[in-house]
């Protein structure tokens, strides 16, 4: 059964022109988000996953950023739109939540104001109506005494509540796609679980698709259906979550999974110790030749050093690696 595509990123390149040169943060990626699903985007810091999300909503300052490619949403190319049209999409059809709720919320505006301004803008309601809706949203994210909280400022809320408020803010206009950039990273583990639950429920209720960006594989396992692995600006593997965890194809993915403490579970490769991936993520200004991962790859071959690997399709999965050619 073919699912309907909500967002389709085709050959996206995002470059930054800085004094030292041109930094290519996202180098030709393709990915799709289907209606009603949660897509996980996994990778280390600096691999380009956040930049991808920011590129979708065009939140990068355009010099020094340069975005090329196509991002199709409902058939329209977001990169072709002018700023006015993009602003109608932002907060409305596509919303974003960020990693740090403390710094991502404006400290001098009340929570209620920050939620209702989007509602007022996109739904044309009056101040009172928008405020009422804002309080409703706060209730939906399970913040107690929402009328009171709406009049408070971000610093008066706890970390978990702030993240809930951000979720309320992002979902207030029932977007069809939610870009969640490390939504739980800044939170305590117990709060993380609550937020994950909350997001799951709301996703069903609002029928929102989620692009979940994180470096936390456990979160992916819980929330996502499909997952995309990024490394140094490229997508190196794409699969259903169960398939990825059961049998990672790309050596990088294998390394990531091998480095998670996992009680009582032996993988196909069979191991007893935590394994780390040797070496460091390359500088975006000094990218290795050939396959970007080759200096750190335990299964590196000669060709990996010289030529960039092709995208291989295998059993409905995709992997960017010479091993699977």
């Amino acid at each position, binding site marked *: 059964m073919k699912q309907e595509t909500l967002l389709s990123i085709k050959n996206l390149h995002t470059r930054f022109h800085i004094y030292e040169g041109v930094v290519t943060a996202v180098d030709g990626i393709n990915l799709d988000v289907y209606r009603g699903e949660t897509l996980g985007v996994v990778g280390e810091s600096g691999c380009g996953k956040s930049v991808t999300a920011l590129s979708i909503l065009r939140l990068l300052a355009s010099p020094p950023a340069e975005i090329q490619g196509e991002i199709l949403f409902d058939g329209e190319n977001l990169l072709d739109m002018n700023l006015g049209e993009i602003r109608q999409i932002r907060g409305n059809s596509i919303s*974003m939540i960020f990693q740090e709720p403390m710094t991502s919320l404006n400290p001098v505006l009340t929570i209620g104001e920050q939620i209702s301004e989007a509602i007022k803008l996109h739904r044309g309601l009056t101040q009172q109506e928008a405020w009422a809706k804002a309080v409703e949203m706060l209730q939906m994210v399970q913040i107690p005494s929402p009328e009171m909280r709406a009049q408070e400022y971000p610093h008066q809320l706890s970390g978990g509540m702030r993240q809930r408020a951000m979720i309320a803010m992002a979902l207030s206009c029932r977007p069809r796609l939610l870009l969640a950039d490390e939504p739980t990273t800044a939170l305590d583990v117990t709060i993380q679980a609550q937020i994950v639950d909350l997001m799951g429920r709301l996703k069903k209720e609002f029928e929102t698709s989620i692009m979940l960006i994180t470096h936390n594989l456990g979160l992916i396992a819980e929330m996502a259906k499909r997952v995309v692995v990024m490394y140094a600006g490229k997508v190196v593997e794409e699969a259903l979550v169960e398939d990825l965890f059961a049998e990672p194809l790309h050596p990088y993915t294998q390394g990531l999974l091998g480095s998670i403490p996992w009680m009582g579970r032996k993988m196909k490769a069979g191991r007893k110790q935590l394994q780390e991936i040797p070496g460091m993520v390359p500088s975006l200004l000094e990218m290795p030749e050939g396959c970007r991962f080759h200096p750190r790859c335990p299964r590196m071959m000669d060709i990996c050093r010289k030529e960039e690997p092709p995208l291989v399709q295998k059993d409905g999965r995709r992997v960017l690696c010479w091993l699977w050619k």
Partner: protein
Amino acid sequence: MFQYVLKRLLSTIPVLIGISLLLFFMLRMLPGDPAQVLAGQMASPEDIKLIRQQLGLDRPIIVQYGLFLNRLAHFDLGRSARTRNPVIQEIWARLPNTVLLAVTAITLACLFGIPAGIISAVRPHTWVDYFFTSMALFGISMPVFWLGLMLVVIFSVVLKWLPAGGIGTWKHIILPSFTLAAFVVAFITRMTRASMIEALSQDYTTTARSKGLKEKVVVVKHALKNALIPIITVVGLQFGLLLGGAVLTETVFAWPGMGRLIVDSILGRDYPVIQGAILIFGLLYILVNLCVDMIYAFIDPRIRYD
């Protein structure tokens, strides 16, 4: 917030004590007999004797300090060595003029400086930005008294539009307040620009944009509101500094204010007035800083609701 206010108020006490000590010992550091110094050149022996008694110079220093504080509490700052009028009277005659000048100057400076800073921040590295920043830089580098003189040359000598000095009509206040404002507008512009750039680079600005808000709304409602907090602090500080810069401007334009008073008394060795003027300046500055802190506490919700 109450704690904050209380703390601020309490912290002024050591400074007040410090100022009183400073003034107390300043007099005694001068060469010669303090009573003679206070009395001035034209004093008679009886005057000197009276002052010596007032100061309690033959008694232990603690007692002298106590007497000093007592006099301060009663607003008794002595008599001017030149005019024999009570120092309070001399000051009171001139203080309003200085305050008028300072208030006019700071208002002008804000009217020009804050918008200029905002525009610079929103369009960095454009010619508008470079223009405003250069103007600001020139403003801080220029000696304020030279600017005043140059303005007099242009507007009074060459163009003959405005009077060169004195007080009286609205025309008299234009040049001095512009001169004073020029110095301050530079600081305000720079601070506004820096503060706005900082606010615009914050995460919450990205969040605001991600909701689809228009850029104008993002700049004014989201960024400026945050940026205003340090800006107001600077404006308050500048107001305090204006009181110091007024000294030079008042001299250039023969403006009868506190600044002229202090210069004339230094040149005329009128120590009671010097003492009094320094005290008043210090008090004013502390008062202004206190007000700025209060405003700051009021507009920053993080302090107000805590």
